[in-house]
């Protein structure tokens, strides 16, 4: 298939395809981070993850509308405020959900699957009732549209670069919070031994609530960022949930590094395959590979070493 193209053409395509893979990688990490925290640290299977993302997207949409109507001069910068608001909104809803629903189910992890799935249906219908069944279009400031001209034939999408930077920032932030801060130590202590953690004076209920809130908040930021590349509608969250779970399970729950490694391998496989065959086939082969590896290594790529 390459016979007809010049070397220069091929070179620039490989560069752009590399970028496409990196962008896909960032998207996967960003959408999986929130779930990895909740699933990994708390053992809660959050089926409503996609809906928390879409809440973030709707917050972004409302912020964009607000700025267009009342503060058009500041419109070019609204996206940063929108992401913060998305984090706050999704995080707050997450904490509320934890208090009302999840905390009663810690001893029955499989039931959280059913409960959060129900929650996702409720949220979808709520979005539909509040924002309407049709998709909404989020207007972006001019500087976030289009692409960077690197050379004559190499163009890098600005929104892709934006997502990449955001992903790096959030990943570093989460890693710092989890592994360096006092609160992160408490979270890990609760994960390892809830009773002992409580005995040494850690408020485990509070830790749970904030962990869940943090996971949902990050989902909200991801949803906000994805308004640049995807659709915003009541059921758009469903588009992400399968890939998200795939990344988290493949990486091995409870491991931030695993999530990143898994996002990287899945995205690179898929993006490379997509170039050589049709999109549907690429997806099938990627899923097959993941299933195969999980059969050999059910605990995922990286697993926490614990005494059984």
């Amino acid at each position: 298939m390459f016979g007809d193209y010049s070397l220069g053409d091929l070179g620039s395509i490989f560069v752009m395809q590399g970028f496409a893979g990196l962008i896909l990688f960032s998207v996967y990490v960003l959408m999986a981070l929130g779930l990895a925290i909740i699933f990994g640290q708390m053992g809660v299977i959050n089926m409503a993850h996609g809906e928390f993302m879409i809440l973030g997207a709707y917050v972004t949409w409302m912020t964009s509308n607000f700025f267009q109507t009342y503060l058009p001069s500041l419109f070019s910068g609204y996206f940063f405020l929108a992401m913060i608001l998305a984090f706050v909104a999704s995080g707050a809803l997450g904490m509320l959900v934890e208090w009302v629903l999840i905390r009663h189910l810690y001893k029955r992890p499989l039931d959280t699957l059913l409960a959060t799935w129900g929650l996702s249906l409720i949220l979808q219908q709520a979005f539909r009732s509040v924002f309407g069944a049709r998709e909404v279009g989020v207007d972006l400031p001019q500087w976030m549209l289009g692409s960077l001209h690197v050379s004559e034939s190499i163009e890098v999408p600005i929104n892709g670069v934006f997502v990449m930077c955001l992903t790096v920032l959030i990943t570093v932030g989460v890693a710092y919070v989890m592994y360096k801060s006092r609160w992160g130590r408490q979270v890990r202590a609760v994960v390892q031994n809830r009773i002992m953690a409580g005995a040494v004076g850690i408020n485990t209920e509070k830790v749970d609530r904030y962990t869940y809130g943090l996971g949902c908040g990050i989902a909200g930021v991801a949803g906000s960022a994805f308004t640049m590349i995807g659709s915003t509608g009541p059921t758009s969250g469903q588009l992400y949930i399968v890939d998200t779970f795939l990344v988290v399970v493949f990486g091995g729950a409870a491991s931030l590094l695993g999530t990143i490694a898994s996002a990287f391998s899945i995205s690179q496989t898929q993006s490379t395959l997509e170039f050589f065959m049709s999109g549907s086939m690429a997806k099938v082969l990627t899923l097959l590979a993941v299933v195969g590896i999980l059969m050999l290594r059910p605990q995922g790529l990286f697993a926490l070493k614990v005494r059984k």
Partner: protein
Amino acid sequence: MSSNKSGVLMSDEETKGLLSPLRRKLLMGMAALPAITMLPRASFAQAPATSAVNTTGLAVTDTEVTVGILHSATGTMAISETGSIEAEKLAIEQINAMGGVLGRKIKFIQEDGASDWPTFAEKAKKLLVNDKVAAIMGCWTSASRKAVLPVVEQYNGMLYYPTFYEGLEQSKNVIYTGQEATQQILAGLNWIAKEKGAKSFFFVGSDYIWPRTSNKIARKHVENVLKGKVVGEEYYPLGNTQFNSVINKIKLTKPDVIFTDVVGGSNVAFYKQLKAAGIDLSKQALLTISVTEDEIDGIGGENIAGAYACMKYFQSLDNPNNKTFVPAFKKMWGEKTVIGDVTQAAYLGPWLWKLTVEKAGSFDVDKIAAASPGVEFKGAPEGYVRIHENHHLWSKTRVGRAKLDGQFELIYETADLVEPDPFPKGYQ
């Protein structure tokens, strides 16, 4: 949704569904006996007697006739089907304001297919068997139509189906008010080949029956008739959100035309990423058969401005019918609502049914099916339509160019009505 009232009421009646069909029929027959003697008295001067216009036990009284609306008001497809529901309700309201059908007001029962195909079949059965509706306006995806088709054929119902679709189907019990694939595609390809001198085409679609069949027809046409070349044909799963790889392939193959039938949420991702990858639609010709004004609402006008769409209706059409239709629609459903191709086709359903009933002088499904060919609707927002022998519509095909404000500017329309050809020879 607010207007689900009738649907809720009907759920009481679902217990009746437990009775066997035979017993139901017997009961109905017995119940009807005393009514026969009363019927002559009930006939009005202007409206023909119920016994004369309804010989098969449909839900027709002296003052009312009941039809069903069957779309997804919830689930993934609610995005698309909401417009159809709105259009059908508007048409029914307008028909009632004009005095109804054969002197009877139309009452509708709305059921929710919930984006789930077995649910569509079940609700269709409920509408036909329990509610005895005279016609169903409904379905949107081909999958839901395929699920409903055996039901309307078994219970002899009448379905008015609004979506443009892949063809390869024809039924006594269905009137297809949208275009079938050849009607929609061929004229558009001819136009772009002539206008842009296009020789090479790149196809991108969602991976299911409609895009695959449409692209098959398009490929045959490009290769055999236009003597052009298809340089790529790519499918992505429904709901896919990452198109960077295929966009790179498009850049590599540099086609004259990108021909797309990507649907749903994927659409938004596709056009946003196309724009982000630096593909300028004012220079790169793109012809889509899946983006209507409804979809542009989600995609954003700035992401798709310059693209060409090929279908039979645009909200911006400049004709007297459309000039009364658009304000009436906005008055009923809000100033910001947009009207896409399928919404308009859904609006045709109740009207075509009314005209056919009046032509047949009866609500009986068999008589309507027989009377349908030749029925013409001069008040159609798209201009003028006529039902063909094969139960599809004669209609014009148009090409529009997307503008920044999310509307299409009409660029080209066929001089004559295009004949529907659901089983095209040489294209299969």
